[in-house]
């Protein structure tokens, strides 16, 4: 368990800085017009010039993806727990889960928008659907992969099924839950944005769509920058939370 040290942040910073400097230099030296590729400084200026619009849109999109993520985690964990209690349900629930998983999200998004309107709800649902499957599969696997030595110990203690669940199986799912979240969190941003493309009254996806229709590339890139930052923020928060709550395991950053 290594903390994020200055050693590991320095190369990251150098690489990022050289990418952006190179990009800036390329645009300026070649005189590339902003409608093809705006320079990073141009994009930053656009963001700061429209700070309140970007801020509002970011709040909407982050709100959608976070609510969807939380809903998906609750539903996925709940379904996994139900399945562990009543294994007979497994086939039925897994069929539905695989159906949800295999249906392309882009195909469902327009439908939900038509049915539920331009508001926040269809985006939350799409994100939740996307989160549901990895969480379900991983939590099931966590419940099943509890340390056999611990299961033996509890069995020698004559622990009830509930006690085994509470003291062994449930904590064993935590690392698996975080693995699922690391997959789902970036996906949840994509899901919210794509859902917004199909029609929305606000959000970063909406901003991107408007900018795209007007070929306003600096504006479009502004949204891309913010989404990238949000993705990184999700990841850092998750890694931090994982270190904090799954402290007993070596964690690969």
């Amino acid at each position, binding site marked *: 368990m290594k903390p994020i040290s200055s050693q590991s942040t320095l190369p990251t910073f150098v690489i990022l800085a050289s990418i952006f400097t190179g990009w800036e230099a390329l645009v300026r030296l070649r005189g590339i017009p902003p409608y093809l590729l705006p320079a990073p400084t141009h994009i930053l200026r656009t963001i700061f010039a429209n700070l309140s619009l970007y801020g509002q849109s970011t709040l909407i999109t982050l709100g959608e993806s976070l609510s969807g993520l939380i809903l998906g985690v609750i539903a996925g964990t709940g379904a996994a727990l139900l399945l562990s209690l009543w294994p007979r349900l497994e086939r039925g629930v897994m069929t539905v889960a695989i159906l949800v998983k295999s249906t392309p999200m882009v195909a469902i998004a327009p439908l939900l928008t038509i049915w539920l309107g331009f508001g926040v709800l269809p985006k939350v649902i799409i994100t939740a659907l996307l989160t549901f499957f990895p969480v379900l599969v991983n939590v099931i696997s966590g419940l099943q992969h509890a*340390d056999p030595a611990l299961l033996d110990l509890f069995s*020698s203690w004559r622990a009830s099924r509930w006690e085994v669940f509470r003291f062994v199986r449930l904590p064993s799912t935590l690392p698996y839950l975080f693995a699922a979240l690391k997959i789902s969190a970036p996906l949840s941003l994509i899901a919210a944005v794509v859902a917004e493309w199909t029609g929305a009254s606000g959000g970063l996806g909406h901003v991107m769509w408007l900018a795209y229709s007007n070929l306003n590339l600096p504006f479009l890139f502004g949204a891309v920058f913010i989404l990238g930052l949000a993705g990184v923020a999700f990841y850092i928060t998750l890694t931090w939370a994982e270190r904090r709550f799954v402290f*007993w395991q070596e964690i690969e950053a």
Partner: protein
Amino acid sequence: MEVVVKDLAYTYNHNAPPVQALDQLNLRVQSGEFVAIIGSNGCGKSTLLRLFANLLQPTRGAISLGGLPPAQIAANRRVVWMAQNPALLPWYTARQNILLAQRFARTPPEKNVSADELLSLVGLGEFSSAYPHAFSGGMQQRLSLARALAMNADLWLMDEPFAALDELTRERLTIQLSEIWQRRRPTVLWVTHSIPEAVRLADRVLVMTPRPGRFYGEVRISLPRPREDTTLEFQTYVRKLKQMLVSGGETG
């Protein structure tokens, strides 16, 4: 707690060719007796303890622990089983691991030895709020031992509890454990690879043959405690058991 085993056999059937681990095993252990079991690798010593701990069911024969089959006795929480694997809860501190065991042991709180006392007994006094993942293998095993002691059981099923310990720690713990046993007088079945350890601790040492495991012979150790392994009698016992182990291996 008296232990009686009659014509016990166990076969692992989940392997492609079934593996017969134990066969025709007979044993009688008096209440309060310390019995060590030695034998080569894979002779079924662990299997035997798992049968006592009710983790496996005999293929043939019967086990009686204080007059009851393991399936019933274990419900009274009077039996403690310590595996080779320390099996600690990684999300609990050393102290919490012990408290959890006591919670399952269901002994009245006033009878419980305090967790801190047990931890200092095994030399982990200053690590009571540390988590097991920070421990070395030997420390984990000591914590596991403290947890087993915490359960205050009448029958101890110990599967090589000192295997991962260095020689000095092993010696120190052997002496302490011997004292605890003399004070509490539980019945102990102690599986080990170390002949000197068996001679140091046990009233009686049983030698098992290789697979399928049977009892080949036994040696009663009539030395006063504490036992010094430098004495001539001690060395005689060790030599005798070594010979028995070798000839038992040949007949098996």
